[in-house]
């Protein structure tokens, strides 16, 4: 059974890196500890995280000095540093409202699917519709800036991004999902007898027990695998009504990505940074040299305003950076500056934004 670990690898490494960064500053650091650190940092992933700490420590110097807390606040403080702050805050929230963020909870439980669902319901009395397994045939749809979690009959989970629509059909011998638009992360319960298939645009994705992300753009679908292996084939290789058939396509494994167009023409398989792709779950959209056109398609799923790119030159500009879901308006306003005046942004009314390149008037 393939359930995501409560703490994603990256955040565990981040905590470890921060730990070592502070320990190295201990004047009484023991030789044994020093040696443990050297062993730890011999792993490339750890080394990267540690170097990130160095940069981030400097970066923090540019932040405003936070407010000095009052004595009263300190006296009322219950945090003792024994657990990561994120966990502490979660626990506090849970204590306050009896409810935790469901996506994170289920992720932590490496137990049988049925038990998992039961636990989900018990933890989440107000959000039962998110946790109770969906009927065999269901349609799920999210609106702008909304995320939703879905549990299927077989224990598989779908995290839906904003403005996303999927239809699920779980029967005794097939698990068939049709994805009409948007972005979703699939966490597939292991069941070799019932292939898990996602029909998205021009392609069909088949998984056995695995986790993968599907991002649908206008004429492009991007499949990113975070665990296990999936097989991606042209949609024409299965029956579009129920997903039955014997698709043969490219095998994409954890850490890789493939994309295809409406006709099911496949790209080469690329190695990618999984954290970047999955960051949308945390309200961050991260890009590395992504055409502005594609960035804007994502933005439009989160923004209240409809963003339109008016010309091809602007559409093809490459964007590298992070968009915070909460700050999309700021991001739009700052775009001309980000592209050094090569584009301009106009807002004819409060619902529409146009981006065009400057010399294209």
């Amino acid at each position, binding site marked *: 059974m393939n359930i995501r670990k409560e703490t994603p690898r990256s*955040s565990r490494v*981040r905590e470890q*890196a*921060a730990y070592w*960064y*502070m*320990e*190295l*500053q*201990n*004047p009484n*650091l023991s*030789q044994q500890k*020093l040696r443990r650190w*050297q062993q730890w*940092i011999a792993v490339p992933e750890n080394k990267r995280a*540690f*170097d*990130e*700490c*160095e*940069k*981030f*420590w400097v*970066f*923090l*110097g*540019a*932040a*405003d*000095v*936070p*407010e*000095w*807390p*009052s004595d009263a606040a*300190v006296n*009322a*403080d*219950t*945090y*003792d*540093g024994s657990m*990561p*702050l*994120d966990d502490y805050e979660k626990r506090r929230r849970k204590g306050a409202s009896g409810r935790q963020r469901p996506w994170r909870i289920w992720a932590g439980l490496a137990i049988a699917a049925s038990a998992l669902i039961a636990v989900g319901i018990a933890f989440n009395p107000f959000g039962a519709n998110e946790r109770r397994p969906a009927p065999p045939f269901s349609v799920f749809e999210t609106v702008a800036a909304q995320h939703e979690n879905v549990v299927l009959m077989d224990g598989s989970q779908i995290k839906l991004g904003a403005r996303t629509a999927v239809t699920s059909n779980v029967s005794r011998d097939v698990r068939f999902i049709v994805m009409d638009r948007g972005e979703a992360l699939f966490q597939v319960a292991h069941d070799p007898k019932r292939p898990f298939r996602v029909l998205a645009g021009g392609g069909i994705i088949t998984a056995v027990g695995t986790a993968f992300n599907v991002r649908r753009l206008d004429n492009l679908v991007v499949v990113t695998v975070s665990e296990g292996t999936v097989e991606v084939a042209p949609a024409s290789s299965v029956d579009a009504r129920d997903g039955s058939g014997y698709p043969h396509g490219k095998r994409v494994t954890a850490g890789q990505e493939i994309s295809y167009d409406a006709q099911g023409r496949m790209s080469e398989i690329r190695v990618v940074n999984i*954290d970047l792709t999955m960051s949308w779950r945390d309200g*961050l959209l*991260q890009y590395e040299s992504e055409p502005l056109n594609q960035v804007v398609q994502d933005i439009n799923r989160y923004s209240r305003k409809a963003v339109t790119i008016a010309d091809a030159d602007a559409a093809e500009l490459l964007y*590298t*950076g*992070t968009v*915070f879901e909460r700050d999309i308006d*700021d*991001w739009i306003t*700052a775009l001309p*500056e*980000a*592209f*050094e005046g090569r584009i301009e942004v106009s807002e004819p009314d409060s619902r529409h934004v146009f981006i065009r390149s400057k010399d294209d008037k």
Partner: protein
Amino acid sequence: MHHDIPVTENADESNPTQRGCAAPAHSAQIEQIFREHNDSLLRFLRARLHSSDEAKEVAQEAYVQMLGLDNPAAVNFMQGYLFRTAANIATNRMKLGAARRRIDQLVFFDTPHETRTPQHTLDVRQQLAHVNEALNRLPPLCRRAFILVRYEGMSFDDAAAKLGLHPRKVRRFVQRAFASCQRALGR
């Protein structure tokens, strides 16, 4: 016989050559130790000094000191000795030149593998806003520890004394606060 000081960040970076003064057998051994631990020694020193230039200087000084040893001990002992020597030099520097302890702002921008596109400037401003927010969300005691260490430049021990906590606890607070800010930025 010659000994390039093996304290470099990149293999292709050529350092001014400095002649060693120890006996050849020792110095070859010491040189090997330095080459093996060069990366981690520099990281270790940067974590303490927060400056890559000073880290390099201290590492070189440690190298010279060790070349001057009359009786270098066995290789596996030397590794520990190397870090201790370097740590002592670093500590002395910090005591002597508290005024010089200025953070090397270049470190942040000195990212060879990352092209600094204009988008980064935009991000930096947004990121700072998020960091400020995350810092002010820290639990009170944890935030105090973080302010003292990061913004008032106190050592962990001094901050511990001021807050009436064990230094280990202060390190833990600062670690948690630090990781939480990183998390807020999805770093």
